[in-house]
């Protein structure tokens, strides 16, 4: 048996092997290891070695009112951010979907928030949001409005963080929708105009249904990302004031690297994983059902 025949006989295995190894080492292993840790009592502050403890860590985490709050917050943050980003992103895309001078420059400007470093974004927005010397309250005072506490108050912290998320991620939806709009065929529009349809009718009866699959894809991508948002929230508020902006990811980080309770932190991450998985499956089912 020579070498050539070995490669040839096993080519079906060998060629995808690098990809398979990558997925196992970089994706499957961490997930399974986290699952394993969630069944242990691993806690660095106790100085004791890791021990298998079945559902003890689950009981501890589920007994924390803070954890249920974090789940709710993760959802409300995601819902607010994705809804606003979808509407604004779609509107922006429709505005930009025509030929005008400086379109290329406009697209470039739209890209900038997407490529900026999240922690740097957080620091700059924190300066804007400072209630005493920040730009945001200065702008409000110019408009004759009452100053806001922005990220400093439990009531306004989530909307303020959503605002930053909108600033950063609306362009992504715009760019995806723009690409979808560019691919639409012009015929339906021409016949609609001949038939005397109004602009609103054209939008609601032609553009929206045709763009729906693209828009939905953009929303799924955004939702999965928004559920996992960590960097901006941690950089701006660290989950505060109190726990008022603590999402599941932020809570898991604090449990690992501030409390050093690795087992319980893994429990939170397992729940977050299941949540994202469940949501993705629901959306995929819906997509199939409505043939989008």
């Amino acid at each position, binding site marked *: 048996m020579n070498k050539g025949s070995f490669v040839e006989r096993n080519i079906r295995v060998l060629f995808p092997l690098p990809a398979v190894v990558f997925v196992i080492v970089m994706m499957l292993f961490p997930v399974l290891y986290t699952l394993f840790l969630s069944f242990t009592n691993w806690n*660095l502050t106790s100085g004791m070695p890791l021990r298998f403890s079945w559902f003890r860590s689950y009981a501890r985490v589920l007994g924390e009112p803070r954890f249920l709050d974090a789940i709710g917050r993760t959802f409300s943050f995601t819902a607010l951010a994705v809804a606003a980003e979808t509407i604004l992103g779609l509107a922006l895309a429709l505005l930009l979907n025509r030929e005008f001078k400086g379109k290329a420059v406009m697209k470039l400007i739209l890209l900038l928030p997407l490529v900026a470093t999240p922690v740097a974004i957080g620091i700059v927005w924190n300066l804007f949001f400072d209630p005493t010397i920040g730009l945001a309250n200065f702008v409000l005072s110019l408009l004759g409005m009452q100053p806001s*506490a922005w990220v*400093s108050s439990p009531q306004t912290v989530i909307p303020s963080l959503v605002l930053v998320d909108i600033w950063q991620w609306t362009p992504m939806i715009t760019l995806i929708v723009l690409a979808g709009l560019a691919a639409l065929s012009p015929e339906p529009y021409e016949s609609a105009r001949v038939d005397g349809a109004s602009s609103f009718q054209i939008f609601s009866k032609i553009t929206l249904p045709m763009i729906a699959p693209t828009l939905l894809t953009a929303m799924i991508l955004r939702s999965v990302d928004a559920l996992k948002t960590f960097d901006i929230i941690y950089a701006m508020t*660290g989950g505060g*004031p*109190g726990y008022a902006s603590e999402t599941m990811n932020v809570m898991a980080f604090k449990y690992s690297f501030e409390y*050093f309770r690795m087992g319980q932190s893994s429990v939170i991450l397992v729940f977050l994983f299941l949540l994202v998985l469940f949501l993705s499956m629901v959306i995929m089912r819906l997509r199939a059902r409505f043939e989008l």
Partner: protein
Amino acid sequence: MKVKVFAVLLALILILGAGAQAKEIRVLLANHPYGELLRAAIPEYEKATGVKVNVESLQESQLTTKLTTEFATNSSSADVFMTRPLQEGKMFYKNGWYEPLTAYDFSDYPESAMGVARFGAKPYLVPLVTEWQVLYYRKDLFRKAGLSVPKTFAELEAAAKALDSHEVAGFASRGRGAAAVTQVSSYIYNYGGAYLDKGKAVFDSKEALDAIRFYGKLLALHGPKGVTSMSWENIMPLFQAGKVAMWTDASVFYGQIVDPAKSQVAAADVGIANLPAGPKASNPFYVVSWGMAVARQSKNKALALDFIKWATSADLAKKGLIANITMARNSAWADPEVRAKANAELVASQAFAAKNGNPFDRPYMSAVGNARDLIGEVIIESINTAGTSQTLANLARQKVKAVNELLEDTGEFGVY
């Protein structure tokens, strides 16, 4: 031909072998003024000893995260690192991450500092930098208002009220729950309370609650807006922008608030005073904020020990103090040359704190991160209600219970 190839190979092996034997250590420093001072001095050390020092500088919480991850997974190549004794000392010791430093001469360090450097009978870390709580105040605003520097909490409150205006907050201190715990500690001590006593949480005592109420009232009525999300990094820019009349925080920030490149307030207008006395006592915290240690996992322990002796030497301590870094070594503070150059008010407040200070500014326990968040909830409730909360005592009792559970979890309950 063969001989030539052999000779080249032999030469290569020799060179590589020599390379592998070159003396090298890995040192992790914090983004702290002393870390920067060391970084600048390390080339001299390398030249004198021939040891190559690979330095990494990290922000303090990232330093803890990195060290913990490396040590917990047994994958560390760190030899020497900066460490925060009160925040991570107990946990690092329990996990066996510090190498005992029996061959180091500790005679130049104050006993209060050695208390957190020793576990059992052996010392495990070298105290590097100390800090204590002070009152920073604006001399010009005090002059204008005809006030003198407050000596008691009652005077502090009166001054905060008098100095408060639309433009300037009369008083500032940390309000962000966990971060505020260290600053509230001195208020609690001055009211006669404590966070922990004999290995049990006691911050629901009347003394501690009175202190937390007083702190909350001061910040709610005279503090900057949004104070419950503020730590020192948010208050310092306000002070530098001239928006704060008085600020109680650690002594370590003096250098930065008088730096003309960063501050709009003239250095001559910034004063430092002792933290005002409370109804029961005057014991501000006086703590070792940074130490330096050798990693138990280090494979170059002899080199590491030599490096740590140099990096914590009396000579460098003097240089640090001249640069307004408040060093732990006694000899640095006693040196007449240093005393002539250092700020007189800073030196005076150090003398007071060193004599009367409490060596802890937080509950001294392994699970301190979680405990700080729990105590922080009580502090935030007090600030949000200007100290008048009806449920504060109840909340504090719940949190005391939770902190006691943490102590039990880690085998530290009742142990002291």
